């Protein structure tokens, strides 16, 4: 009986000792919760493998996503993993190599949430990556797993607040100043977002979103982290403009590198759902239209 146990143990030790490998795992501290975006961003996960000896060796990645308490919520299906050949020297692998989503099996509610939203819930997680090889007893670890803790950020774009959707502003007040307000990007992080506020006039014969997609904005300003902007339009309106004159406004949110914070949602530009507002004369003037006042 002792012989039966010691023989496989010997083979494992010999197999592992044969692989002279050093590995290092790096992961962005607050990666996006949209897991499918990880594969397109090399900076998200880097796994550095240094092989000291010169004997080529076949290996595969076994990757586990865990909660902070160690509960495994997702793991690579190693039977479907594509092997790599390790040779002497250092190589860097990225998310698309170590965590191919098409062979990751998530468990229970996390699979349901991922199927429904494409995102993991915002929380603290840890990612563990290990190189394993096909030994005489099946899959065997070549080197100890490397783990990193990170916080998953599920970003929520700002929601426009003021002027409210379809709000009607007094013409004389609006010609002097219009106040825009919005909710901040959630969650608030150390890297302050930039909000690009754009206001487009909706011309006659135009649909609101058509105006947004085609016109030059009357206001195009970027502000850092603040959630209010007072615009002095300096606009005049033709007496024959079909009052109320319509405007559509939106906000584009960028990170500190200038890129949209969410790149794979509907419009791909991190633009918040736009609001409409109108500028018209007061009701008093509206009544006087018939008298030729306007």
């Amino acid at each position, binding site marked *: 009986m002792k012989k039966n146990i010691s023989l496989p143990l010997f083979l494992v030790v010999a197999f592992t000792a044969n692989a002279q490998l050093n590995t290092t795992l790096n992961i962005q501290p607050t990666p996006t919760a949209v897991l499918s975006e990880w594969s397109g961003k090399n900076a998200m996960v880097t796994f550095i493998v240094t092989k000291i000896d010169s004997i080529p060796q076949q290996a595969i990645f076994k990757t586990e996503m865990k909660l902070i308490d160690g509960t495994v919520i997702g793991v690579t299906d190693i039977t479907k993993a594509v092997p790599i050949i390790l040779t002497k020297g250092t190589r860097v692998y990225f998310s698309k190599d170590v965590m191919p989503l098409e062979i990751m099996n998530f468990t229970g509610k996390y699979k349901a949430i991922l*199927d429904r939203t494409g995102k993991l819930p915002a929380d603290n997680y840890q990612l563990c990556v290990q190189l394993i090889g096909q030994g005489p007893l099946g899959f065997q670890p070549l080197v100890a797993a490397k783990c990193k803790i990170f916080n998953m950020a599920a970003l929520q774009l700002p929601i426009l607040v003021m002027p409210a959707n379809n709000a009607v502003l007094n013409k004389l007040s609006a010609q*002097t100043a219009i106040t825009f307000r919005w909710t901040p990007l959630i969650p608030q992080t150390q890297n302050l977002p930039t909000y690009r506020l754009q206001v487009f006039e909706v011309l006659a014969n135009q649909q609101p*979103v058509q105006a947004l*997609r*085609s016109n030059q904005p009357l206001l195009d300003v970027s502000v850092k982290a603040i959630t209010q902007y*007072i615009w002095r339009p300096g606009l005049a309106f033709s007496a024959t403009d079909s009052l109320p004159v319509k405007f559509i406004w939106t906000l584009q949110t960028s990170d500190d590198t200038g890129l949209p914070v969410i790149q794979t949602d*509907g419009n791909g*530009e991190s633009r918040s759902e736009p609001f409409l507002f109108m500028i018209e004369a007061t*009701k008093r003037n509206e009544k006087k239209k018939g008298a030729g006042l306007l």
Partner: protein
Amino acid sequence: MKLTKLICICFLFGFVNLSAQDSTNKKFPIKVTGTMGITYEGYGLNVKPTGSNIYTPRRPWNQVRFLFAPTLQFGNKFSLPLNFNFASVATNFAGPYAGLKNQSIGQWLTNPMNNFSINPAYKWAELLLGTQYLKYSDLSTGDIGIFGAGFNLHPGKFMFRFFTGTSQQGINYAAAPPPGITGAFKRTHYMFQIGTEVEGSHKVAFNFSKGKDAVTSVTAPPLAIKPQEGFNTSFILDKYFKKGWFINLESALSFFTRDLTQPLIPGADNLSFKPFIAARTSTAKDFAGQMSVGKKSPNLDISYATKYIGAGYQTTGFPFMQPDHWDNTINTRFNTWKNKINVTASMGQRVNNISNTSLRASQFLGNLNWFTQFNDRFSLNINYNNFGFQTASGLNPFGIKNVSNDLGISPMYTWTTATMTHLLTVSYNYSKYDERDVITGITTSNNTHTALLTYVPVYFNKELTPDFSVLYFTNTMPAFKNTFITLSSSLGMPVAKKKIQLRGQLQYTIGKLNTFTANNNLVVSCTIDWKINKKLSWNSFFSTNYYRYGNELGSIPLIGANYLESSVRTGLQYKF
């Protein structure tokens, strides 16, 4: 440019030709209604010091817009509406065409700046050709312009609608010249609706919509935008009962692939809806729904509305729809006191980020507008808006808490003498915006006061129509104070036997930011409307905006920096 000139000549020729034919076509069995027109827009900007970049242009330097939108009616059963509405210069700043200057013909045709549509209709059948903005429902497809072909069939109470086309062509990314071209993948849409509808009674329908980007449609893919694919199905039920009661319902399911370059997942049948969409690693399937129920009547409207958009719900038919929220609102409107009091109010809550319990954000929304006409001379309008936004703290010591309160009071007084009527309006608005810092927990208040006084004399025996107003605006928060005073007046009058209407406006604003020296702003505008004949009019509008900064921009040479922007818009419009 040659093309633009040619089109101008054709349009001008069209004006003359149509005007000449007008009186001779009375017996022809074709009735033509609608409009056509051509408008030139010019813009100029002079900034000092030159190259200081203190102000950037906000209109195209030159733009010509063309409109040709007649409807040809052949008897009672056949109609042919045309809508050719396009511009000479591309000015896209958001969306797929942003930054694009030199367009191919395909890009020009599908650019949202331009509309080319022909919709011949015979009885209950309508053919849709060219650019269409089709809204099937609130959750399936609606606010995107698509260039293509399709039909609307409405035999009796049944309806069948189909359309397919392109909302954007493939556009290569380019970094230079600044600001570069964002780039886009070519996107093709398909949409189908089947159901029954009786106006004023009910509507029951199933909607299917699909949009897919062509990954190979560009040689230089956009940097940040991924090729996508979406398939949606929704069911709508609208029912209108007696006495004004109604219910509107829609439930929808979306399959959305965020990145078509990601690999397929074999066997993931729960995320596929074959043959319309196959699951990839970036595919999500989620639900959305909305319902409103209530009653409408001449003096009382009341309704409850709820809308849920799942975190993974997306549709190519509404590319700006924001997912992951649940709204609940109660809305009402009523008239009382012999219709002298009109009240509209709504109250509700929006929960954002509902897929993340730790970062769920609740948003309270409430607004009230109360108008009272006390007598023939005096009326009062009061409005109040409250908005509150709050999240859990997450990783920060404190959660976000933003609260906005706005109160507006507008009394209006009118009195009449033997020769004129006087209108005097005072409008005061107070806005308070509190924002909590998530690190320190300190709440800062941002207060804005706006007061506007307007006087309008109306002469019984004169053609002059003047008005005068003065506005005071101040916005304060810790270590910041921004104040403006605006004086404004306008004057209108008819000339040339009332064939030409003139109106001018003068607006002067003096502003002060903290302790900096004052800035000054002058806006002058003029409108000239010439009604050449019953069908042809020539409208022109000129405006100039001069702004001179104080010393808020910094030291010399920016002290006294200024800009002068001018715009002109002139156009001929012909009504058939």
